[in-house]
């Protein structure tokens, strides 16, 4: 399995620390500066009127960044769209690098003073129902890749067993240290 389309969500330490609409001018300024490595930043969309949607979306050719309020927890999600290398491992690495860079930039934005992203928890979302159906076999396959990436100490939890949901793995422990 070479899983190319995947997403990673980093969680904000304090969901109340920011106003979601403040991401709109910030993302526009990123486009002005084209400041995301390896990404052609294209456009910004405000979907904050939709529940469990992409919130504020920053569209790039290689992947999309968006705020996410699923389960009431603010986070930053990155979904990779274009290939980054030739293995699932390289795609995960690229996605992680992108979302971490974006999180770091956000933490430095004056308007988001106090915003911090957690280092002890993240989600990995397989955004491909053909290559990665939400079942135990796929989870097992992905688990070994994630262990390589985040270390054997990381706790990997199968987040939803509903086959209609995308396969999502909660990675806890100290995955970003």
């Amino acid at each position, binding site marked *: 399995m070479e899983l190319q389309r995947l997403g990673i969500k980093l969680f904000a330490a304090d969901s109340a620390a920011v106003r979601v609409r403040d991401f*709109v001018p910030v993302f526009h300024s990123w486009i002005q500066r084209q400041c995301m490595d390896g990404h052609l930043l*294209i456009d910004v*969309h405000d979907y904050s009127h939709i529940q469990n949607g992409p919130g504020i979306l920053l569209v790039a050719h290689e992947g*999309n960044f968006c705020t996410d309020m699923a389960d009431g927890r603010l986070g930053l999600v990155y979904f990779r769209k274009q290939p980054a290398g030739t293995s699932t491992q390289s795609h995960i690495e690229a996605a992680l690098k992108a979302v971490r860079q974006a999180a770091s930039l956000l933490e430095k934005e004056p308007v988001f003073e106090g915003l911090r992203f957690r280092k002890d928890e993240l989600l990995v979302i397989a955004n491909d129902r*053909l*290559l990665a159906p939400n079942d135990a076999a796929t989870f097992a396959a992905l688990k070994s890749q994630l262990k390589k990436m985040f270390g054997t100490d990381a706790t990997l939890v199968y987040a939803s067993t509903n086959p209609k949901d995308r396969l999502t793995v909660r990675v806890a422990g100290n995955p970003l240290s």
Partner: protein
Amino acid sequence: MPTWEEKLADSLDTQLADEIDKFATEITLRKQGKLDEKVFAETRLRRGCYGQRYDNGHRHDGIRSQELHYPADLTKGPETLWDAPGMQRIKIPFGGMNPDQMDVLADLAEEYADGVLHVTTRQDIQYHFIHIDDTPAIMRRLGAVGITTREACGNSIRNVTACPLAGVCKTESFDVVPYAKATAKFMLGHPDAQNFGRKFKIAFSGCREEACGLVNMHDMGAIAAMRVENGKVRRGFELYVGGGLGAVPHDAKLFDAFLPEEELLPFTQAISRVFARLGEKKQRDRARIKFLVAKLGIEEFKKLVIEERKTLTPDPRWSDYLSDAETYSEKPLRPPTFLNGQKRPEGFDAWYSTNVYRQKQDGYVVASVTLPLGDLSSWQMRELANVARRFSGDSIRTTVEQNIVLRWVSETDLPDLYRELARIGLGAPGAGTIVDVTACPGTDTCKLGISSSRGLAGELRTRLAAKSFNLDDAVKNLRIKISGCFNSCGQHHIADLGFFGTTLTVGNRKVPHFQVVLGGKWQENGGAYGLALVRVPSKRIPDVIDRITDRYVRERAVSENFQDFVKRIGKKELRGMLEDLTKVPPYEVDPSYYSDWGDPREYTIGDMGTGECAGEVISAAQFDLASADRLVFEAQLHLDSGDYTNADRLAYRALMQAALSLVRAQWPEAPDEPDTITREFRTRFFDTNIWGDRYAGSKFAQYLFARHAAPPKEHTHDQAHRLVEEAQLFVEAVNRGHDILAERGQK
């Protein structure tokens, strides 16, 4: 690696699979340089794959125009880059969906788009930010659940729409769904519908009085009708042709007061053949069937269609479906019940008062799910599918008001249904009220957008929802519809309060504006079209609504509807009360006017830089343009008073005045003489291609040339109404033309 093609090989209808295979091959050929970009553009459009804003590789970021360097050195059409995100439109005939289809629609939005589904004003569903390489997989997965994107765009028969209450409506003659379904199926890919000069839209309605089908604004519209012949009740249709919105709206013309049901498909075919044969092909802006019907006159058009009908080879599909049509019905999931004394959750009563319609079948209701801006997330769509499985079964419809309705809900289930909708963020009240604002994509994603229709709609929705409990009932029931440009995708012509995007240069900067359109009628299938009253900066539109609705509440006569109120007060008076809102403060005083709703970038159009025009010349031109604006408005007043001769005269004067403003920018002594103005306009701006709307091309210049060359033989309401619309659009286009000239340093 496995592919969807392999996985779904046995799940797809052979014809549909072939069609998708063909498209996949065309993608390969285009990548190999073996297929011309124009041919590929038309072929993708016919599969619903549209371009999207910034796909030419340019985007103004608020400071400068950036070049977007996409990896592939390839185009998917003229000035349309391969890797640029695009839009995928999905046809949902008569808006009908079932929960399994909703699941797939949700999955695809998540995996290939941005996780959002958008319901359009023609019951379609759209995804944005799609890569063209992903479209065959999307089409296969949709095809596996019986959905096609074929002919969702391009010069073809678009989604066949129908009243979302069909089959359960108290005022309908009969359920039009079997007929809408049969028409959509019969005409899909039909050889007689492959050679149109432009798109062709069909709508069905169950009755004449309500709005739901919007027959009046369609290329072909059918209203259910019954007739007793020889003691037997027969089904048929009141058939209309030649309606349409677009830049200049046309009322549909009655083709037949009673077309028997068995003649519906053959006549649809015959109309298509006449349109394909005689419709305009070269001039895109005159190619809709409304222009053909207007040119020939409805009687001549009808004669040609009847002759064509006689030449058709009988086709069993014309009548195969009819035996089931009369007995067609949907099976409710649960037995009928009535609301009794059960406990109602908080918020339920407000939702119930606006979002629930009692069906003609006792004990059942239709529940409207209001979608802000027509959007819902993949998660919401999947959850909504589950809600439908529990409460309404397969009977789900999208609506032209960009909502979704669940039908055949047993009444006692309503409190539980409401709880579920509220849980997934879809329990907002206000369906079909002033809060339920309709808007096209506008500058968010549309290449033609001038102002932010969605940004404005979102702002209005928030403000109106906040005060909805205090709104007078008369105001609550008004409709607001917003288009990002003159092309009317937001259906602003038929709203009580309509708006379409335009722009104005103030100093050396552009300011987003909206034209305020009043007098439209939503009821009676979109029974009347409003006219533009005045151009107001985008940021002052909420004030426009407050002023007009406040006055309506204060001064309306008992039972006076909004259209009658507008007529009684008069447009002159209404324009006067908005006059101060048209003023734009200098940028240095209030820069907020110079950006659009929801977009912090300084506003621009077309990724052009700021002009360096000479202030004096611009001022003179603006003076001339202001005269043209005034003339259009005066023409409107004559039109409203029934004086069509003077309406035509003044609209013609407005065309000349606007053209003169541009001619004088280059030749200050140009005489105010129609032949000279027209000639000079043609040679200086039209023949040289210097002036022209980027997307509409020469369309607006043709309004001037056509009226100058052929004054009307008789002055009718339709003719005068059209010319007033054309003059308004011409003035707007000349306004943009001045900017273009200034930016090119040609004046």
